[in-house]
């Protein structure tokens, strides 16, 4: 009995740790890319899909083709956060940057388009990203969410 409980907790802890690592790595990558973008190059669609470009050189400045992040639900067991670059290719040129992602939401206040953003100043050049991950470990669900705000460095 004691060993069973310990084993279950060990598995749940391991599962949660895995989720945290996935989410943190994905968030870190997104933040580092998005930080380099500029406001006029960012588009958020439906709060769940973001497109932007980043500088590839600054003397003179040239920008990359569009980069996009979004979640694809293949099944309950396969929900992945994808990075697509260049955006719009057919078939999509994309890689999964995290597994077990239930949702990603992007919020950006830009002028009047600020409906879903709480506590973000309209002109502060901030993008808020929220990642929610979850999975089932031995019939128990574990979840983890992480929110970060990024200030775009290129105005």
């Amino acid at each position: 009995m004691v060993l069973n409980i310990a084993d279950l907790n060990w598995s749940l802890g391991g599962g949660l740790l895995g989720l945290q690592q996935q989410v943190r790595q994905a968030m870190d990558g997104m933040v580092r890319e998005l930080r380099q973008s500029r406001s006029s190059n960012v588009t958020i669609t439906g709060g769940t899909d973001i497109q932007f470009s980043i500088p590839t050189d600054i003397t003179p400045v040239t920008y990359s083709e569009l980069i996009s992040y979004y979640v694809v639900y293949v099944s309950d067991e396969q929900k992945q956060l994808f990075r697509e670059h260049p955006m719009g290719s057919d078939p999509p040129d994309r890689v999964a940057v995290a597994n077990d992602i239930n949702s990603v939401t992007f919020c950006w206040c830009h002028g009047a388009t600020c409906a879903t953003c709480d506590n973000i100043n309209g002109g502060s050049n901030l993008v808020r990203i929220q990642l929610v991950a979850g999975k089932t470990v031995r019939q128990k669900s574990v979840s983890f969410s992480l929110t970060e705000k990024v200030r775009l460095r290129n105005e």
Partner: protein
Amino acid sequence: MNNRGVALILSFILIAVLTVLGAASLSRSISESRIARRYSESTQALWLAEAGINRALNELRDNYNITPGSGLWPTTMLEDAGRYEVDVSVIDVGTKWLVTSHGCIPDVTCNSSRTQRIIEATMTKAVSPGPANFFNNAIYTPGNVNISGSAYTVTGDVRYGGTITPDPPVNPVDNIYDTSITTLARFDFDQLRAMSQGQGNYHDATHNPPFPTSFWKSIGVPNIVFVEGDFDLSGKKEIVGGFVIVGGDLLYDVDITGNAGVDGAIYTLGTCSVKGGGNALFNVNGGIWAGQGVTITGSTVIEYNSDYMNAIQDLNLIFTVQINNWKDTQNSYELVPVN
């Protein structure tokens, strides 16, 4: 059958298995520890490099004729755990620089540091009276211009560095796509604050005292209206006169709705939204500078006023050094190798 010695062999096997398991566990622990340290140091190095960029910005603002070089201003930070160093090279004498900032862990010369993050930035300074065509437009923005409907009137040039939507606009406007506008040239906001305070037109977050209603303070001298915070004239039947500066170095927005208007020019590093809806003669009579783009909705009337713009230009205002482009040189999905 002689079974003597089996226990010894089994013991050896068990010890071997436990040793392998222990070694694997130890190896993984060390590996995880190194990954965590690598991540931590990489993040620290980034913020050190950011500090270096800010140092260079302030040094250039103090003296934009500084001698370029490598390894400038080595500064120890993070309680002696790291440092930044900055390389500055001149692109255009006195007006444009390439700044490369190195954030380094530990606090040793960056060439021999264990972890390093590098940020590149171009910094520019407009020369008074301002960039080319800065004072010639009804709208001037490095961002996007979005226009809704067809009831608007814009008299004068619309100069932008982003996009215009729809393209072409429903009602013809003199729209000019200008690739030279990457960021909005920054005035010396301390100078403008002081001028505004001297005229009694300085507005803190409470927006007191009342705004002037005429562009002219006296003959040939415009009112300089400095507003700390958003400039929101929505729902007001109010005409504000003067050269209105919104937020200074901070990004605040302008919102003009209905019969409200500005008899003069507006400058903001944020966005400017104008939604005309009444029967006002104008919503803006002068011009708009907006760093983050302009939105026009409804029966908005925006007019370029050369008399007002010439008066502002004749003030010979000082421009300051600003970051024009910013780039993290490291791939976003790689960490800096740690020895």
